[in-house]
């Protein structure tokens, strides 16, 4: 759901560029200077990891293949702000190097996938932790959070397209959500399996992050 150039009108892309720009600056500032510095290699390389993991694609029905977004995965392992920065990096590089997502739409894409998708999906996971937490619900929380993250991102993308007058909400919302409900299942499966397997091998990694 990387929106390309030309699909958002000027007011929409400027608004979302500003919102994401401010958000990213705040996220970078939210760290104490020393702490962020310590995490530079971690954040930069995890972003590269998310990108590389997106290369491992999985088949979806009908010959198309979906790939991993990784927003909730990054947030759960690194904490929401670091996860947000990580996903923003991925989207910036995808835009510059891969032309996946447009330059003017970069702010909107960061907002949808980096912020709403990742941090939003992560909040659901946080809610789970508060309410029902145990070894049984762990995979359920992972799966629901990552599925929701995809749906949230798709919803916001549809809204932006409608706001720009490109595609009517009555058309874009059902199609986007329909397609992404399926993609979301792949995302949920991979995120859950990967997180469960990390949980088995290095449980310390999941305990050290203070949210």
């Amino acid at each position, binding site marked *: 759901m990387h929106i390309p150039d030309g*699909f958002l009108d000027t007011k929409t892309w400027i608004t979302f560029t500003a919102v994401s720009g401010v958000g990213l600056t705040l996220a970078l500032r939210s760290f104490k200077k020393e702490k962020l510095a310590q995490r530079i290699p971690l954040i930069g390389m995890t972003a590269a990891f998310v990108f590389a993991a997106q290369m491992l694609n999985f088949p979806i029905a009908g010959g198309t293949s979906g790939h991993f977004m990784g927003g909730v995965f990054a947030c759960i392992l690194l904490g929401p702000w670091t996860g947000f920065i990580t996903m923003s990096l991925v989207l910036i590089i995808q835009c510059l190097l891969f*032309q996946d997502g447009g330059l003017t739409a970069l702010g909107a894409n960061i907002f949808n996938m980096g912020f709403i998708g990742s941090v939003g999906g992560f909040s659901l996971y946080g809610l789970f932790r508060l309410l029902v937490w145990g070894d049984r619900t762990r995979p359920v929380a992972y799966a629901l959070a990552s599925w929701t993250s995809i749906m949230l991102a798709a919803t916001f993308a549809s809204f932006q397209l409608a706001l720009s007058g490109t595609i009517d909400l009555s058309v874009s919302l059902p199609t986007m959500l329909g397609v992404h409900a399926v993609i979301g299942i792949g995302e949920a499966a991979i995120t859950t399996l*990967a997180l469960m397997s990390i949980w088995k*091998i290095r449980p310390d990694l999941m305990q050290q992050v203070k949210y």
Partner: protein
Amino acid sequence: MHHSYLDKYARGTTAIHGLDARVKVLFSFAFIILIASLRASGFEFYLACLTLIAVCLIAARIPTVYLLTRSIVVIPFAGFAAISYMLTRTGGTTYWHSGPFAITSEGLIDASHLLARSWLAVSCMIILVNTTPFDQILKAFRTFRLHSILIMLLSFFYRYLYLLWDESERMQRARNLRYFGGKPEKQFAMLGHLVSSLFLRTYERTERVQMSMLSRGWDGSAAHVKLKPFTLQNVLNLVIGFSLLIILWWISTW
């Protein structure tokens, strides 16, 4: 696709490659913004843009086939969006209709504009990254006062992207050597393991990279980068570039 494909021609030696990265970045970004912000424009505008792209392509000795295959990335989303756009527009001659959907001449024209614009923007970006090494693009960002930590993060990203990409390819190959297909749930489980072990390897590598930074006296501040001065020639090139853009804009108002 292999990663060397991404910016395969970035280290060429043509005059376009020789231009200052900051000039190229500013020009390309302005070009993309211009294209994205024009809603409707005539056929002449697209022709002029196409000419500009073609001239750059030839001058930078980038094969046309390369540009065309690389620009396919726009199709999944742009194609989907353009089709829905087309089906919901009304006006002009109606060729087909069913329920709320219709194919009309207006719809066809508008949808093709949409596709043309996103294709032009993508082509411009492909030419930019194939005429400018990525480290220089990052240095250009540094001049534009982008957050220095963000730039350092991006440069880490770029550096380790290739390494991890190779690693994920090797892991996939190692899996395929010993794996002969199976049920979907098995495939997903396998993918989950690949993702988690790729992450753990990355994580452990970050610990070692950090040690190597610290053992060279790093105190946590962003790396120092030396920038070339912005010469008069650069200013001149930039003026020429922006004059071209103004001409393009003028053509669009015909």
